[in-house]
């Protein structure tokens, strides 16, 4: 579904992505772990070209990522993205947040888009908030709406860029539950996270990144019980005891 080959990217002198090769199959859930600054967020953002890259190629469902313009916008519509800071449209109601893309990009009628949005809101459990504005919702609710907004585009793949990192601890689970349910429903997902429990529970594969490189790719079981690389052992040694 997503094929990344030989991708390189610099921020100035900093080489943030070094020869990244990664293939994500249809229906697969890949969790990307790694210390801060390892390039995992950048990798996630290059998949829909929110970050341009210099060399290499990324294809989605066999189609090469276009450089810019309308073809890129069309491809992005097929790639759902959930951000760390939710990024709901602050001036629109929850319902309008979800219907905007389907109406403008997929050309759905308002009635159809509304109906779909209500179904999605029910699925993520925030039906009662449909006519409120994002700032009136809790972080957990906002993030679930953001997931609904991405799903409204009927994406082929969903990217999650640290979706629970900006949440209060008691709201993390409600978002992870929605994501777990989504993973079980067969959605192709790339998830950048620090939630090891989610990685164990929902991931088909764990990708461990450090210093802009993919250091290790393994099943969650292998990775958490017997990490091969020193970097991964070091990383897990620092976080797992807590």
């Amino acid at each position, binding site marked *: 579904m997503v094929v990344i080959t030989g991708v390189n990217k610099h921020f100035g002198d900093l080489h943030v992505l070094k020869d990244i090769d990664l293939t994500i199959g249809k229906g697969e859930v890949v969790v990307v772990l790694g210390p801060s600054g390892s390039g995992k967020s950048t990798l996630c953002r290059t998949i829909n070209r929110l970050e341009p890259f210099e060399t290499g190629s990324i294809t989605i469902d066999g189609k090469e990522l276009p450089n810019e313009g*309308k073809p890129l916008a069309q491809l992005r*519509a097929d*790639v*759902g993205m959930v951000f760390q800071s939710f990024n709901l*449209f602050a*001036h629109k109601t929850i319902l309008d947040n979800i219907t905007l*893309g389907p109406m403008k990009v997929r050309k759905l009628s308002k009635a159809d888009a509304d109906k779909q949005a209500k179904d999605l809101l029910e699925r993520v459990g925030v039906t009662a908030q449909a006519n409120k504005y994002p700032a009136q919702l809790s972080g957990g609710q906002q993030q679930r709406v953001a997931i609904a907004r991405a799903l409204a585009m009927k994406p082929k793949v969903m990217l999650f860029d640290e979706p629970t990192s900006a949440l209060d601890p008691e709201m993390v689970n409600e978002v992870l539950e929605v994501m777990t349910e989504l993973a079980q429903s067969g959605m192709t997902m790339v998830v950048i996270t620090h939630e090891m429990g989610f990685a164990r529970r929902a991931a088909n594969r764990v990708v461990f990144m450090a210093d802009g490189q993919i250091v290790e790719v393994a099943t969650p079981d292998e990775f958490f019980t017997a990490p091969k690389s020193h970097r991964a052992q070091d990383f897990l040694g620092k976080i797992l005891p807590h």
Partner: protein
Amino acid sequence: MGDLFSQYNVLGAFGITIVLTVLSAIGALVIGTFVAIMRVSPVAFLNKLGALYVNLVRNTPLTLIIVFCNIGFIVNLGMSVSNDFARNNLVWSVIGLATYHAAFVCEALRSGVNTVPTGQAEAARAIGLTFGQSLREVLLPQAFRGAITPLGNTLIALTKNTTVATAIGVAEIAGLMKTMQEDRADLMIPIFLIVAFGFVLLTLPVGLLTTKLSTKLAVKR
């Protein structure tokens, strides 16, 4: 003092001032939005063109622009829009005023755009909106709300700056004030006060309204 109003068409002159203000404001808003879009667009050439417009027009005295509209465009280049002398000057004054204040509208809007977090634009692009759709649906509506106060300031400045149109003979209130003071030197101070009060009446509601709107429409984050 009452005979000032019967002798001179004070209200009519204020009417011209209002016409100048409203038409120029609409023009400035349209041109300013356009230039602001150029300045925030990802195309380097348009960025530079927008910056050039703002820096050239904003730093040129308004009197010079208005006079150039008359001497330059009407007299020298023969670009008349009407055979009626008064109408011609009025239209060119509106063009000059709109051109000049568009630079300020652009900068007010740009400051509004800067109040919109980058995540909003990223989210818009991530759901597949094109650059134009992101602007229309997400960025500009929030930018306008963030720019209400500076836009109000620009509108107040524009209202008062219409007096410059008197330099090319538009019959607005500053022109009439000069005539009245020449005729009735005995009423010099009352004439000043009437005109000043008229402008306060015109601009005060703008300030009150924009303050109210900016709190009411503020985007809560």
